[in-house]
């Protein structure tokens, strides 16, 4: 035996290995088509409990498998009765009486008022998810079901935004959930991987590592007549890599993915023969919190210097390729209450220096916070750093993951001097932005700017409790202008949504609250 035969042996081994590989690759692939819609989602569905989470990234499991009394639809979002047939509001604005439609849960049992009562009390008891929307407004045990079809909410204090938050009360089947309690866990362990809703689709399969699959619920109260060929089933899979989501959409593995992709990927999808991109103006503002409670940011002149040091055009047009809309105020510019024709701050270093000169005392090094893993926040921080360096302000950028940042945001001492982030739509009312971000009573909780301006606060407080729509609109417009004038934050843009879908997909209805992921309207050619 020689070296030559050794080489031949290895060569034969190699050839055999590659032939085997070739044989394997010749296996047919299973096609995904027909009435099944597959969505590639960037966030992991680590729980399906509709009361445990309250984020936009995982809204699909809530909105498709559960129903609320009301539902936000379309863009701009319109609040429509859903499980409720009608709602009556008392003159004092404290009592909301909902009358339920005839509806069934997925197990065939009727949806009753007691299930709604159980659901709101469960949210309040769990203190997770949408709890913060109702805390202080509804007390546990205050919601009553005088009969099977009537639910009465009695608010602890008047709230003009209560109705806007009602869609977040997803109704669960009390009997099913309570039968699956594990000690005092309120059924969270069981409901994290099972379904107990009445939504348009019924859970078929769930794997936290993969996602979930659901079948059309033929007995859904809304019926299916309005869609010619409704989907048989839907599947939402977790695919964390952007490139994998995009490639999967291009080759037909997926029929849709999230609408907030980077512009280079959107362009790639637009160039694909099998994909279309639905462009809509959303309601998700990008801004920088300024810590108004700490020097020198407590000085309006310094805040104005900060606002004039950010290159808005460069960020929006160069970095983001014009894929977003300039929004100079803290309210999305397509939301009522946003003032029209506001010019806002521009990138003007001369003006920045002018205001900086008016600031008394030494300027310490400024810490600019960004969210690690969210490239845009880091890019914006770098851009601001560049502007501030040019006017002689020393800065440092700190990029930290969201759990770290969100913890610091609630601590006056630990909070960054500035922090770039988004504010999403949890309910379509200006209070979602202005009231949460700048009301004095929210300092340290939802107001992470430590901003408290009595005049602004009065406007916000009045708007939050009044039922006079004209007054509310006027108050929010005025508050917006005052906040901008006061440079309470650096307001940059309102997001556009670029929903990519396979060309077979028809009937997608985008709403900023559901992110275009309510699948009951969709069909496949």
């Amino acid at each position, binding site marked *: 035996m020689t*070296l030559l035969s050794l080489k031949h042996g290895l060569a034969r081994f190699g050839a055999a290995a590659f032939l085997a*590989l070739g044989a*394997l690759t010749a296996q047919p692939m299973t096609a995904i088509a027909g009435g099944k819609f597959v969505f590639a989602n960037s966030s992991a569905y680590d729980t399906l409990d509709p009361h445990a989470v309250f984020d936009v990234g995982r809204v699909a499991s809530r909105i498709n498998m559960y129903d609320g009394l009301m539902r936000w639809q379309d863009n701009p979002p319109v609040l429509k009765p859903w499980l409720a047939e009608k709602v009556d509001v008392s003159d004092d604005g404290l009592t909301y009486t909902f009358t339920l439609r005839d509806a069934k849960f997925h197990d065939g049992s009727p949806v009753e008022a007691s299930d709604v009562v159980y659901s709101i009390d469960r949210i309040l008891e769990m203190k997770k998810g949408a709890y913060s929307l109702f805390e202080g407004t509804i007390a546990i045990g205050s919601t009553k079901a005088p009969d099977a079809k009537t639910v009465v909410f009695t608010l602890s204090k008047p709230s003009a935004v209560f109705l806007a938050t009602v869609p977040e009360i997803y109704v669960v089947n009390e009997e099913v959930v309570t039968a699956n309690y594990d000690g005092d866990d309120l059924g969270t362990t069981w409901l994290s991987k099972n379904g107990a809703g009445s939504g348009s689709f019924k859970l078929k399969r769930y794997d936290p*590592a993969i996602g979930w699959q659901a079948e059309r619920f033929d007995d859904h109260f809304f019926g299916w007549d309005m869609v010619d060929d409704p989907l048989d089933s839907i599947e939402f899979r977790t695919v964390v890599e952007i490139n994998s989501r995009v490639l999967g959409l291009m*080759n037909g593995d997926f029929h849709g993915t999230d609408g907030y992709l980077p512009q280079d990927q959107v362009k790639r999808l637009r160039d694909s023969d099998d994909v279309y991109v639905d462009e809509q103006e959303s309601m998700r503002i990008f801004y920088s919190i300024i810590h108004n409670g700490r020097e020198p940011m407590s000085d309006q002149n310094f805040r104005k210097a900060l606002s004039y040091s950010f290159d808005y055009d460069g960020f929006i047009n160069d970095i983001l390729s014009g894929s977003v809309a300039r929004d100079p105020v803290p309210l999305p510019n397509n939301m009522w209450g946003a003032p029209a024709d506001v010019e806002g701050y521009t990138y003007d270093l001369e003006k920045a220096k002018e205001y900086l000169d008016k600031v008394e005392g030494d300027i310490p090094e400024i810490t600019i916070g960004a969210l690690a893993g969210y490239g845009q926040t880091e890019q914006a921080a770098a851009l601001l750093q560049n502007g501030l360096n040019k006017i002689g302000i020393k800065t440092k950028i700190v990029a930290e993951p969201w759990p770290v940042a969100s913890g*610091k945001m609630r601590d006056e001492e630990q909070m960054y001097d500035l922090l770039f982030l988004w504010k999403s739509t949890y309910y379509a009312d200006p209070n979602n932005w202005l009231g949460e971000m700048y009301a004095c009573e929210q300092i340290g909780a939802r107001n992470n700017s430590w901003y408290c301006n009595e005049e602004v606060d009065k406007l916000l407080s009045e708007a939050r409790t009044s039922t006079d729509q004209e007054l509310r609109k006027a108050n929010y417009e005025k508050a917006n202008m005052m906040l901008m004038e006061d440079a309470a934050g650096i307001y940059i843009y309102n997001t556009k949504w670029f929903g990519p879908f396979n060309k077979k997909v028809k009937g997608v209805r985008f709403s900023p609250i559901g992110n275009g992921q309510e699948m009951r309207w969709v069909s496949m050619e």
Partner: protein
Amino acid sequence: MRVLVLIVNRLLWFVPTLLGLLIITFTITHIIPSDPIAFIAGDNASAEQIAQLKEKFGIDKPIPVQLWNYIVGVAQGDFGKSLYTQRPIADDLVSRLPATLELTLVAVLLAAIIGIPLGVLAAVNRNSWIDHILRIFTVSGLAIAAFWLAILFQLLFAMEWGLTPLQGRVDGWGPDVVTGFFLIDSLIMGDWAVFWDVVHHMILPAITLAFPAMATVMRFTRAGVLDAINSNYVDYQQAMGVPRRVVIWRYVLRNALIGTVTQLGLIFGSLIANGVVVEAVFDWPGLGLYAVQSILQSDYNAIMGFTLVMGTIFIIANLLVDITHGLIDPREAR
């Protein structure tokens, strides 16, 4: 008998090693300025709500107390529950571990099956054109980033030529779970279509994961063979007329493999840890992504559970390496 003593000795070190690992990881995860409860409670939660939740989950207590409670729980087989989902951590780990183990085992197997013969080939052809070409292969394997290679493979084999699936572990949801290893489960079910589909899905991620490991195995095998090939016993055996093929594969390789086997043990551990990139690109539902997500969310119990499992696997892999050493070279077991 000596191998048995070796195993017992290693097992005795098992508990203190894991305990040390747990204490270090627990302390680090709890002292970094992260607030998972604020994250769970949502954007709009007040400080009071967050405090109430902390009390509910028991993370308002001093760190040593929390650590003690955790260790007592683990000793009783309770890994705790996820702060986010309230599901038992053990359930989450059990559902994901087979996917990671299956991919890693296949990758290590590929690395060994391809890397060892190529290493021998490079050594017996030292400084020839074969050696030079294989050197390019090994340098590439060590230098090319896994995510780049993964995307390249996807573009080429899945998108351009349509030869392999783009991502996922199987079309649809896979066979009924018996072991969680889809290759085994599909065979148990006698479902050859699913078996081939699983193999089909595994090609790209396994090769991507195996590529750098293959390069390491090749280099170590080559070095080992070169070291052994110059020994006196090789000259003696050749002088005695023993065929060169037999000398290389029976005697030289056996001596040369000691270093390679050590590397395979280390590679196994590092592939599990590094598999996260491959898992992310190929949408492979394994432990890597779970760990990353848990770390980003500061889901304490999930991080600890992952660490415990990884530590155990690493210790077992090293124990197997030691045993294999003993079998290859009986002097090692002395």
